[in-house]
């Protein structure tokens, strides 16, 4: 929501949510800088430029200072309903984070191929593509991703624990390629 003040009209980007983001970022910065003495060391008889604490100190001081200034220069300093709605929108994506983490957790157990063949169509289903055509596309794309990355480009993804139940010849083939 954009107000009538000159600052609000000239503000770059949407105003909704800016205040909450700046407050959260400032809180994080203050929390981190309060741990500076505990989490970094100042070593005696060592030059200033070589101190292990120097760069975290510069970074965190910069975070606090610039975020503080940003907060001060924000055109609106009152949390409105639109700000809360925007924050709710950020929290909504945690669902997809959980999808991603579940996928990461399943791969070492079920194997890359089976996990992907389940994950991509399931996520497509969740995203609203509930017809046969899109589900088939999702499964085909999932299969292609596994073949390109694991079989062809040989990226480091471990074989699934489930492959241990396969006969010897098939097991090594599946561990290497899928």
């Amino acid at each position: 929501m954009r107000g009538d003040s000159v600052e609000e009209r000239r503000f770059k980007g949407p105003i909704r949510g800016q205040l909450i983001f700046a407050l959260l970022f400032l809180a994080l910065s203050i929390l981190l800088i309060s741990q500076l003495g505990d989490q970094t060391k100042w070593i005696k008889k060592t030059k200033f430029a070589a101190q292990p604490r120097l760069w975290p100190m510069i970074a965190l001081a910069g975070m606090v200072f610039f975020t503080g200034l940003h907060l001060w220069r924000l055109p609106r300093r009152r949390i409105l309903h639109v700000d809360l709605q925007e924050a709710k929108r950020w929290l909504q994506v945690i669902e997809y984070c959980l999808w991603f983490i579940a996928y990461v957790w399943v791969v070492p157990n079920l194997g890359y191929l089976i996990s992907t063949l389940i994950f991509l169509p399931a996520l497509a289903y969740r995203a609203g593509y509930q017809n046969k055509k899109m589900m088939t596309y999702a499964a085909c794309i999932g299969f292609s991703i596994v073949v390109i990355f694991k079989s062809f480009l040989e990226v480091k993804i471990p074989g699934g624990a489930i492959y241990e139940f396969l006969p010897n010849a098939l097991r090594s083939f599946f561990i290497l390629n899928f």
Partner: protein
Amino acid sequence: MDVLVSALEILMRWDVILALLVGSVGGVVIGAIPGVGPAVAIAILLPATFSMDPIVGLTTLLGIYGSSMYGGAIPAILINTPGTAVNALTTYDGFPMTTRGEARRALSLAYSASFFGGVFSVICLILFAPTLAKIAPLFGSREIFLAALLGLILVIVVHRGQTLIAAALVCFGIFLNTVGLEPVKYTKRYTFDQSFLSGGIDLIVVVLGLFALSQAFYLLNGDDEKIRLTKLRGGMLQGLRELAKHPRIAAVSGSFGVTMGMIPGVGEFTAQFLSYSYAQRSSKRPEDFGRGSSEGLIASETANNAVPAAAMVPLLALGIPGEALTAMMLSVFYVHNVVPGPQLFANQMDFVVALYIALLILNVLVLVFLIFATNSIINVVKIPNRFLGAIILTLSFVGVYSLRNSMTDCIIAALLGVIGFALKRLSLPVVPIILGMVLGGIMEVKLRAGMARVKEPLDFIDRPIAFILFLMIVGVLILHVRRVLAERREIKAEKFANKHASTNFGYYLKNRQTRIMNTRSKSVRRSHLRYSRRDK
């Protein structure tokens, strides 16, 4: 000549040629899909290139980087949605041309301008390489520190209207880089006694979180758009003829692209802005800009495609990446123990020239591919957004997990994905975090090395290049402060102009009687004068 021959020998391998083909075609397709972009693609592919030879891996990534902007022009012109962020200016003149029924002309012109920009910058840099090879060894630790600092300041300053938060995000990037075991004194920094943080936070995890996962979340959280595509008929070569009618705009835009690409932290947007403004100022029909001007299209497309080759200069010559994509490429060098910097230019010039020739070939390949395949490529625009989000989420897993097979890396990437999503929603920049992380690390190492031989603070800038860089930093800061003050004056003037009531009511009350009297006496005198005239 020997360098050229050995550079060609490096390229004459089947895997390099395959990498060029895959990179160029893949880059065009990725660029043409709004919502993917080269940063996401490079972030996902990065770990896969670690097992390749440096030249093969870099050629693939360079292919994607160099050709994505060609592809990005397609949706920018046809559906008014830029395929990559740097094609935003293309929509200004490209889409109005499509609405006039000149889609084919606009596309052809965009390809030709992009081709000219790409080739122009590579030729400039090949010619410039011997001079660079002489200048690069003059950069010691202090100069590299100052150049990195200049890069960080520029990346903050170019985000007009968002400089404060950009500075905070740069500092956040620097902080992320400091987490883990410090390599000189072996002390832990911000590990909170957690073993998974001792190894530090990997750049690729941050890049994938902020670019790929956040983009996946953004698409999954949004809605699908209905897209109507225009059918294209006829050839694609007329653009080259039209481009030949505007050699001055093409050359100036190409030069802006090369210059801005070489300055760390500046990049495509500034190059485009400068060339577009120049083209508009010098045009005979400035009123056409933004309404389908061919000159505007040439200016924006030439400038943005001249940047990738130039952006490789600070990376190769000094080891300083100027933007997020070259920062990602830096990790390919590190994985193979090839340290970019003055030594690379001095000892492996053939490798550098091979990369430039690869870029040259790439531009030709992309142009030929687009001339024949545009009609097929435009269909990728139809992929629904949320379906694309699901695919990107699946692909992001490959990038993060294949790095160290670590669950914690994936969790960190997912958390950064949420932060990236919030930043996207708020239109705040992500690039300062990446550059803060990369340049912060470089600055820490170079300051430590540079200060070892410095007795007084002024000794730090006692060498000519260090002094020039210092002056540039001071100059940029002064210009920025001037601009901020000018903006504040503008805001004040605008506020005053819009004011409905007196803001100085006390003063008004104090002087009310005198004012009324004055006004009253003036009007009385005026009326008396009028009456006296009438009497006469």
